[in-house]
């Protein structure tokens, strides 16, 4: 099994006629994803690789089942696009757009909660369930995605889109496939955190371990550590911690918008201590991850 998406998941792409979105459509189709439509206001009636383009989300949901949407519109229009999707009943919204002010992100997240929907991102590459479907740019072209991602027992979550692929590639090379990989986004406020997604992996019988990518800034790792202890999670977790050099440079922003050390609780040193205290293994190098996962699975 997988979480969030399977080969039967239907989704649309908002902003489908944009340059990057056109590429993404091709990649997702080639990977076997079911894209049932695209939306670009004023471009209704066209098609992108056979995917019909509409002016509104409602025009698609009126006749077709739409499980999810990938939102790839410029930052100034993202909030509107997401609210449109949520109002039309879409339950999984993947926001790939970067540089959205966190107040607007919080508004989208609050509205999604009211609607019983889930947001992944913003500033993320989406979701990939190996052998099932990919929703977003994760893994790039289908031929490349098939090299890096294979089906198996490891759930992967990452604040860095690129490192999602790197970690999955390393797991694949070591014979450890993935159930679902989620690029959750690198911003300070995001739709779904590690702790938010944990219950989905817990409920997925195929997932037997979790691998996460961490960096300084924010409280997401602390939240996960609390979750693991409080809920007595069945899943062993291996974390990779990047950005150790940043502990010496508080207040500087590197990598992602959320990667800025603001307080004493969000340095890598503090995070590593918290994760380890909760029983999470912390890898120093990417290539150490598969060994730690195997160790934890054997224990």
């Amino acid at each position, binding site marked *: 099994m997988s979480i969030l998406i399977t080969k039967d998941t239907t989704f649309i792409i908002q902003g489908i006629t944009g340059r990057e979105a056109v590429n993404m459509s091709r990649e997702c189709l080639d990977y076997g994803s079911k894209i049932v439509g695209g939306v670009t206001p004023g471009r209704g009636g066209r098609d992108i690789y056979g995917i019909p383009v509409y002016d509104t989300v409602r025009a698609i949901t009126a006749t077709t089942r739409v499980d999810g949407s990938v939102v790839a519109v410029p930052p100034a229009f993202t909030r509107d696009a997401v609210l449109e999707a949520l109002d039309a009943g879409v339950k999984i919204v993947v926001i790939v757009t970067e540089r959205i002010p*966190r107040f607007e992100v919080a508004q989208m997240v609050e509205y999604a909660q009211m609607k019983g929907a889930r947001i992944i991102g913003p500033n993320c590459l989406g979701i990939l369930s190996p052998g099932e479907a990919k929703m977003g740019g994760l893994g790039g072209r289908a031929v490349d995605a098939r090299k890096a991602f294979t089906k198996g027992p490891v759930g992967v979550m990452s604040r860095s889109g690129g490192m999602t692929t*790197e970690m999955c590639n390393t797991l694949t090379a070591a014979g450890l496939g993935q159930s679902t990989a989620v690029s959750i986004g690198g911003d300070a406020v995001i739709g779904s955190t590690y702790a938010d997604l944990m219950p989905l992996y817990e409920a997925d019988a195929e997932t037997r371990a979790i691998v996460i990518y961490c960096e300084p800034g924010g409280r997401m790792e602390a939240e996960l550590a609390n979750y693991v202890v409080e809920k007595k999670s069945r899943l062993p977790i291996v974390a990779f911690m990047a950005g150790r050099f940043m502990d010496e440079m508080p207040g500087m922003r590197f990598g992602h918008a959320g990667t800025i050390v603001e307080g004493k609780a969000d340095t890598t040193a503090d995070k590593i201590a918290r994760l380890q205290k909760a029983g999470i293994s912390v890898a120093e190098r990417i290539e150490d991850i598969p060994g730690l996962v195997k160790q934890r699975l054997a224990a």
Partner: protein
Amino acid sequence: MRFYEYESKQLFGRYGIPLPTGSKVAHSAAEAEAVAKEINGPAVLKSQVLTGGRMKAGGVLFADTPGQAAEAATKILALTINGHAPRGVLVEGRAPVKQEYYIGVTWDGFARKPVMICSDMGGIDIEEVAETHPEHIAKRHFSTLLPFSDYMAKELIAQLAIGGAELNQLSRIAAALARVFIAHGLTLAEINPLARLEDGRFVCLDGHVDMEDDARDSQKAILKALGIAPEEKRQARPPTQFEIDGAAVDAADHRGVAGNVVEFDGDLGLVIGAGGGSLTLFDAIRKHGGRPANYCEIGGNPSVTKACELTKLILRKPGVKKIAVMMNVVSNTRVDIVARGVIKGVIESGHKPADKIAIFRIPGSWETEGFKILQHYGVEYCDRTVSMYEAAGRAVAKMQDA
């Protein structure tokens, strides 16, 4: 982006938050003297720097007469604090304080909502109060979708068992602060201390505002009104010329990003992928004992021109002996385009790619095409079977004979 105290107060003033009398920035002794005359009573003069520890460093002085204010201003304007020269000196009326409070609005990353915090123990580190005197702290989240309503502030203040006229005055200030926070894309709006004076009035003695970088586009009007220029980034330290030039390379071409260039004093120039890959690689270089000359992200499918210009910029920096071009397995960035751009940059800088590029490790999209180009120029490259850590090690090893 952090605001100076005087900017924070000017912003607060626009929302009706009461400030001390005077409350103007002076840039000379004469200006300070004039403000002190207006105040017509005891004054406090505070250095305007974006760093803590002003009081200890002698950046806060008191004056009873306009003449003393001029003297104090002269001293403060000449004083550098933690390497920061003052932007000016804030001159304000000084009145006896009966009690200090704290009111702040910030983000709660767990709840993904703004949170308002109030305490009747102001003037000290609020995190310390939260640890040692939790009963003196009240917190309340509020919605980002519904309009902010005044009762939310009132409930917050009432949690601290404050009533009467004090409740109403404090609620008004807290509500105003929440509105400042919402209207201006802030990550922090804080009044600490908020003072109740002997005569019962409340004034904001010190204020702290942080604006989110991604909100700056929508906040141009207020930034202009407060005299904050678009190029003022206000990171933890001021940008170097190299860093400013890096931002110019990024701005010149909309395709991809060549962003977040930060200068160090090593000999290995880094052209590394954006986001998490860059943090991972920077760590790896240091772990191997390498000395990075810079931190420089490139990604989001940059053009040949962008990769080329960025490479030239890095090679121009004195002390750079070689560059390492490395990323994680890429999804949408094209390997061949980065290879082409970097090689062009090296050649246009008058060097041989095989000498100057210590290692090229970008696996993924269009890698076969990219590797062909690198092979043609004799550049050492590796594919995804070589880890990021190992690639960084190879680059550092090459620096021995550079």
